């Protein structure tokens, strides 16, 4: 440790830390613009100049490492003169348009100019003008004259987002921040540049000019999207969510948010919001009052229970629902007598049910990912499914970790990949078995040398050589028709390579759903069975069957043939075609609730705004339904009471366990390989109901209409060229899509995204698919 003195205060700090860090530790603020804790040091703004005793000139505190006995003065005559000078220079070309600037009120330049600048400027000449740019739908670059060239946005792209999309072109007084020939900024983390910009040069396009920062009330909340559970700050004006920014939590999202989490709030104020309970009478939708609607639902459920048996009821919920909602839904169903509840909507293989030692989770803490030195990620569209987790993986790789990938597509992860094996979906299990075999051969536990691919051997070697190893299963592996066997093999690989084994949670409550027991009880039907054998009545919580389920064809057929469908949803959606009752429920900002993220962290939040229209929190709706159905134990007066009930007893940590009590498959049974196999990802901006209605995100390139991509040789076989429109057929239903050649895909595979309106008429996410010339 090193002892230094800052403004007369003794500070003990680590060797290698900067003066700025040390001062911050001692509670002394040194003004700065270009310095950011998470980014590399540029020392370009010079705002943090301080006097170091015996140094002949002021030194930048951010780039000056501490040395023993150093004496730093942040308010000496020299330091103040330097700060004033720098401030004057920074303001020379900065427009004086604070009154109309979106950053006004939360601007670092404004604050620091007040604190350290002069009251007027000596500069009389013309200010320089930087032309505005267009970098897409999320970041506004209409006032680039405000830029002070701190290059935080550039460094963010290089170091955090993994793709450098903005750069500083030209030099000297002509230097300006821009993208390459007006291309858009497409990173899924791009919104963070808005937060990073210390001035009003990069502002939020959807938020611009809708509110001033001092008019906003801020409420803490938790992201309802991916398994990360990012902490949010919800900014509210006049009972309306105006924008979302990150709330710092080093253990979860650090100070970042993915664009999905940042801009999905637009969906909260969507015109598609359902604001009144509605009943279908003679084919027409009528707005009714809550008691009427609930009475109708209760009667309907009673009717079906009495005539067809409670087993004729099925309940489906998305894993984006809160813990309390999921718990009450299953309690209601089980109270009525039906065990048919499920939240694992996109899962295909349920053979692990009843064999699980606990709820599947990440198997470690999220911030442990940064310190791993070997990773094997199986079947994950990592960047799009878990944007911030992918960022942590990139940080680990930057520190020297070896990343191994086993998947059916070869998307750019924006970091070096040590070994990768890209195979058809039905070969995934076989490849995993080969890795396991290679590990066994290496450790000498077996000499049986069945065929092992080179990639499997190198992956096994990589895993065996690590100290902190993790095997993680992505969404694709969890949705795979052989998911249970894949998990068993992965668990065995993990135990052989002394790795931790875990699942990347697909949604905000993928762990919470298990903890809330929103899974079928004894003899209950799971999400797939409920659709294969259609029920007479369905309760849908937040579910849009054509987009949220593994097999939309089956789902639509099932709900269309049901006698009663109750859609609890924040939105009017396709349910209007098949539902009988639509109950408007609150979006996540309008209710209190909890999510359990993929590392098993329970995060509760309060409502930030009042529910829109007559919408009500789903937990209250379910509680009332429970009362109406005379189910015992529905006396909760707060969501906290629900949460405390379901979390009481066994500590949560003991309920998380990835072990599967299933035999290790010895050999992968290969299906007769005929025809094309479908590889389906869920596009990032159609993954849940909220983000589907964010108008800005829907205009980004990630939200473009899906195409079918196949290996070039498959296109030749078909006799089509990239850009042609083809018919994609599953179970006799054809959907026209554009075809694109992607030679990184294995042959025999057609990549057709699911969960998008353009492909909602197709069938299961896995299995055979036909592509025909149209």
């Amino acid at each position: 440790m090193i002892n230094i003195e800052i403004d007369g205060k003794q500070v003990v700090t680590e060797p290698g830390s900067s003066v700025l860090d040390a001062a911050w530790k001692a509670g002394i603020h040194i003004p700065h613009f270009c310095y950011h804790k998470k980014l590399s040091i540029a020392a370009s703004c010079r705002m943090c100049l301080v006097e170091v005793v015996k140094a002949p000139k002021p030194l930048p505190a951010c780039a000056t490492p501490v040395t023993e006995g150093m004496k730093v003065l942040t308010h000496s005559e020299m330091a103040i003169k330097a700060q004033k000078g720098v401030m004057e220079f920074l303001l020379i070309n900065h427009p004086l348009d604070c009154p109309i600037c979106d950053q006004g009120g939360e601007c670092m330049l404004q604050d620091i100019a007040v604190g350290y600048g002069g009251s007027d400027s000596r500069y009389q000449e013309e200010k320089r003008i930087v032309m505005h740019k267009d970098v897409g739908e999320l970041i506004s670059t209409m006032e680039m004259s405000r830029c002070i060239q701190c290059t935080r946005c550039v460094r963010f792209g290089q170091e955090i987002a993994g793709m450098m999309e903005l750069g500083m072109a030209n030099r000297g007084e002509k230097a300006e921040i821009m993208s390459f020939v007006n291309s858009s900024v497409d990173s899924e983390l791009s919104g963070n540049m808005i937060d990073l910009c210390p001035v009003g040069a990069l502002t939020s396009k959807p938020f611009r000019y809708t509110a001033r920062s001092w008019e906003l009330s801020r409420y803490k909340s938790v992201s309802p999207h991916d398994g990360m559970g990012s902490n949010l700050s919800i900014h509210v004006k006049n009972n309306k969510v105006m924008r979302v920014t990150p709330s710092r939590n080093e253990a979860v999202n650090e100070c970042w948010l993915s664009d999905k989490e940042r801009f999905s709030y637009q969906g909260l104020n969507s015109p598609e919001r359902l604001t009144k309970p509605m009943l279908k009478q003679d084919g027409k939708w009528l707005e009714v009052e809550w008691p009427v609607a609930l009475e109708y639902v209760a009667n309907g459920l009673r009717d079906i229970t009495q005539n067809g048996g409670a087993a004729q009821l099925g309940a489906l919920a998305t894993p984006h629902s809160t813990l309390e909602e999921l718990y009450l839904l299953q309690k209601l169903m089980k109270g009525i007598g039906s065990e048919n509840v499920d939240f694992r909507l996109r899962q295909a293989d349920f053979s692990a049910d009843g064999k699980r030692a606990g709820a599947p989770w990440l198997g470690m803490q999220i911030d442990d990912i940064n310190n791993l030195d070997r990773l094997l990620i199986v079947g994950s569209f990592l960047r799009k499914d878990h944007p911030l987790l992918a960022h942590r993986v990139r940080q680990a790789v930057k520190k020297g970790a070896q990343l191994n990938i086993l998947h059916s597509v070869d998307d750019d992860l924006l970091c070096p990949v040590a070994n990768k094996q890209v195979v058809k979906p039905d070969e995934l299990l076989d490849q995993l078995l080969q890795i396991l075999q290679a590990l066994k051969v290496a450790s000498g536990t077996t000499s049986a040398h069945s065929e092992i691919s080179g990639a499997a051997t190198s992956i096994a070697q990589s895993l065996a050589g690590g100290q902190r190893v993790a095997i993680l299963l992505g969404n694709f592996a969890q949705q795979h028709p052989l998911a249970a066997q894949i998990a068993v093999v992965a668990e065995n690989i993990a135990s052989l390579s002394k790795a931790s084994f875990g699942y990347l949670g697909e949604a905000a409550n993928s762990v919470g759903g298990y903890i809330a027991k929103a899974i079928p009880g004894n003899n209950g039907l799971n999400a797939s069975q409920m659709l294969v054998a259609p029920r007479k009545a369905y309760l849908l919580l937040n579910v849009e069957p054509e987009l949220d389920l593994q097999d939309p064809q089956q789902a639509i057929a099932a709900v269309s043939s049901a006698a009663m469908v109750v859609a609890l949803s924040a939105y009017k959606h396709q349910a209007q075609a098949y539902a009988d009752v639509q109950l408007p429920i609150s979006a996540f900002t309008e209710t209190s609730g909890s999510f359990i993220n993929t590392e098993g962290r329970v995060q509760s939040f309060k409502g930030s705004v009042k529910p829109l229209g007559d919408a009500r929190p789903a937990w209250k709706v379910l509680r009332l339904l429970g009362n109406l159905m005379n189910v015992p134990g529905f006396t909760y007066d707060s969501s906290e009471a629900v949460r405390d009930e379901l979390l009481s007893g066994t500590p949560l940590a003991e309920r998380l366990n990835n072990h599967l009590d299933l035999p290790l498959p010895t050999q992968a049974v290969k299906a007769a390989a005929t025809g094309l196999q479908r590889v389906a990802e869920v596009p990032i901006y159609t993954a849940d109901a909220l983000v589907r209605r964010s108008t800005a995100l829907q205009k980004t390139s990630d939200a473009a209409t899906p195409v079918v991509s196949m290996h070039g040789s498959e296109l030749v076989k078909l006799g089509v060229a990239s850009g042609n429109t083809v018919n994609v057929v599953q179970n006799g239903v054809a959907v026209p899509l554009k075809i694109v050649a992607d030679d990184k895909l294995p042959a025999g595979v057609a990549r057709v995204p699911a969960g998008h309106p353009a492909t909602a008429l197709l069938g299961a996410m896995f299995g055979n698919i036909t592509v025909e010339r149209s």
Partner: protein
Amino acid sequence: MLSEQIQTKINRELKKYPADQKQSAVMSALRFVQDEKGWIHSDDMADIAGFLGMPKIAVYEVATFYHMYNLKPMGRHTLTVCTNLPCTLGGANDTLAYLESKLGIGMNEVTADGKYGIKEGECMGACKDAPVLTLNNKKLCGNLSHEKIDQILAELDKS
């Protein structure tokens, strides 16, 4: 697409650097393109980025930072006149005015036949010969008088 000659040249250049630092060759790559085409189109920058595995905007940063790279056609013979302080004291303004009147074009312009272009330059490190200009960034001409300029242009006219 980068021509085969350029690719060969870049590949030769790459041997000078470690395999994981291919972007070190970006300045040479830009030079090869300019030597072949006379200027560097943004499509060529994108191709270089692809070839060296670096972000396009990073190539653009380099190409716009250095004044030697022509971002638009600058004529078959580009005369880059230094306008920094020592050259200006040495009479660069006069040199420039004479050149402009001889060729009938202004700074950063190209003659109608596409033969000559005048470009604004920065210090070329030959201040003792001020005022100076470079010919296509390759040949340095110093101590410029009207006679000397006439002589340079006469020689170029022949080619």
